[in-house]
């Protein structure tokens, strides 16, 4: 439904110009909820602004529902529902007047307009504040008014720029529910394509079927949230807490070092030893927690449990990690800063 072809945007001209988006290509199909991830200034918003026809691409193009954004911007705008960053709206207007204005612009009249407005008001639950000026509403309500504006004409394509930014956890949860509902409640035949940008990784997990990481104007990763997680070095890592045996001197054995001997363990992150008082839950004494990072993402659970059992250690808790999205995010978006960090480390060691 959305086809972005090698789109670029350069702000300014000459030597001081900035290439905000550098040849991004993407296809978004009906039924997909695509999470657009990236650090601030990565080019997420600029890409969205080009797809929605607000900015003209410097090169390349975007086609939405068969309409080219450069040749037919008004046509593209009529099939998109767009929530700009920060959900701007006219503070002096009431939601009722504001949605009526949007309805008129979208070409609805009379009873059809009323029906559309009623439906969207119901969906985002703003019925109680329809007669209050928007500037007097809470942030959560303002955001919902913005969503209502974007959804009023039941567009096949929905583009939301940081829809939950600045909301409290409850409001975030609500907005995410609305988004999820939207994606699944599209036309039976075609479904709806939703693109949302965020820098909150949990959001991708919560609502997206696909995630794209973008940094410095380029697409770095494109996959499902699960695929993304599996790129983390913590994918299939095992975190466990063990009651370490005491050595001859009465000191607890450092099990982190022992676990490093397992062939498929690439790295052991020792989270230290803590002392637990005797309680109904178990015997007192030292507990050591460590995370075992696998080589090449190989599942470790079986190896680790049999290793511990073979030595007679008691495993108190054990958990397998799916991978950490923030880890992948950092890894991907900080990649070209890596050499600098390496040198710093080396210098510090000496």
């Amino acid at each position, binding site marked *: 439904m959305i086809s972005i072809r090698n789109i670029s945007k350069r702000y300014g001209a000459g030597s001081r110009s900035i290439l905000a988006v550098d040849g991004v290509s993407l296809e978004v199909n009906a039924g997909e909820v695509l999470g657009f991830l990236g650090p601030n200034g990565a080019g997420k918003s600029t890409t969205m*602004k080009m797809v929605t*026809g*607000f900015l003209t691409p410097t090169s390349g193009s975007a086609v939405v529902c068969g309409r080219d954004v450069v040749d037919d911007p008004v046509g593209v705008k009529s099939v998109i529902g*767009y929530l700009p960053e920060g959900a701007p709206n006219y503070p002096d207007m009431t939601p009722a*007047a504001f949605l009526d204005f949007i309805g008129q*612009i979208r070409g609805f009249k009379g009873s059809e307009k009323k029906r559309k407005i009623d439906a969207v008001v119901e969906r985002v639950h703003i019925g109680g504040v329809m007669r209050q000026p928007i500037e007097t509403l809470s942030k959560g309500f303002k955001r919902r008014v913005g969503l209502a504006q974007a959804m009023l004409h039941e567009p096949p394509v929905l583009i939301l720029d940081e829809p939950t930014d600045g909301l409290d956890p409850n409001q975030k949860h609500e907005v995410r529910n609305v988004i999820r509902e939207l994606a699944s409640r599209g036309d039976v035949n075609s479904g709806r394509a939703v693109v949302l940008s965020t820098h909150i990784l949990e959001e991708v997990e919560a609502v997206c079927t696909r995630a794209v990481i973008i940094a410095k104007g380029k697409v770095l990763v494109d996959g499902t949230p699960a695929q993304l997680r599996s790129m983390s070095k913590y994918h299939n890592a095992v975190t466990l807490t063990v009651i370490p045996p005491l050595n001859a001197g009465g000191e607890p054995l450092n099990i982190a070092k022992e676990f490093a001997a397992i062939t498929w363990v690439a790295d052991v992150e020792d989270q230290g030893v803590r002392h637990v008082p005797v309680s109904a839950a178990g015997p007192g004494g030292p507990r050591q927690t460590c995370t075992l990072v696998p080589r090449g993402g190989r599942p470790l659970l079986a190896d680790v449990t049999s290793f511990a059992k073979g030595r007679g250690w008691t495993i108190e808790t054990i958990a397998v990690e799916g991978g950490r999205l923030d880890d992948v995010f950092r890894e991907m978006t900080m990649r070209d800063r890596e050499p600098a960090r390496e040198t710093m480390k080396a210098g510090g060691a000496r």
Partner: protein
Amino acid sequence: MKGLVPVFRRELSGYFTTPVALVFIVIFLFLAGVFTFQLGAFFERGQADLVVFFNFHPWLYLFLIPAVSMRLWAEERKTGTIELLLTLPISLAAAVVGKFLAAWGFVAIALALTFPLWITTNYLGNPDNGVILAGYLGSFLMAGAFLAIGSCISATTKSQVIAFIVSVVICLLFMLAGLKEVQGFVSGWLPLEAVKVIGSFSFLSRFEAISKGVLDLRDMIFFGSIIAVFVAATGVVVNMKKAE
């Protein structure tokens, strides 16, 4: 132009949902009255016409019109609603013209509310109502020209204060272009043709003719062209500056 009517309606009703409309209209009517009766000595003149009333309009507009036009685009850019407006399925022209017409319509309402003066004049004497009508038409056209300039300036900045001040200065230049002093100042170093061209841009001299009942087609075309050029320029500036 699809979308022009909703944009016009939203913008115009926007004046009335805030105190802007009330404050503007009250001050406009008050100042118009003060100028006409006190400075213009409307009664003492003993003539049944509205010449003194119209004579002060350029000065009234100089400060009041930029106050209306300053928010047209500066506010949209400041609050980010410009992104909302320009991603709705309407053309840029519909947005620019719709907003301009709303501001013009608002000023027309304020101007129309000076009707008691017209009634008074007709009650006291037998004025030439054709001349008065011409005066109103000229005043309306001149307001449109001021507004178009202000709209264009408003699109260049996010700050309403800057939009106001720059608009006042530029409108003042247009007003005074025909005065002897200005002409004398530029004639020292500009060729005669250029001085004439500058003089021909004078709002004051053109409006003076209209307010006396001389409806010259050239003057009307002049104001019409100023409006068209600056509204078109507004579109160009909005398009250029929207990303910032």
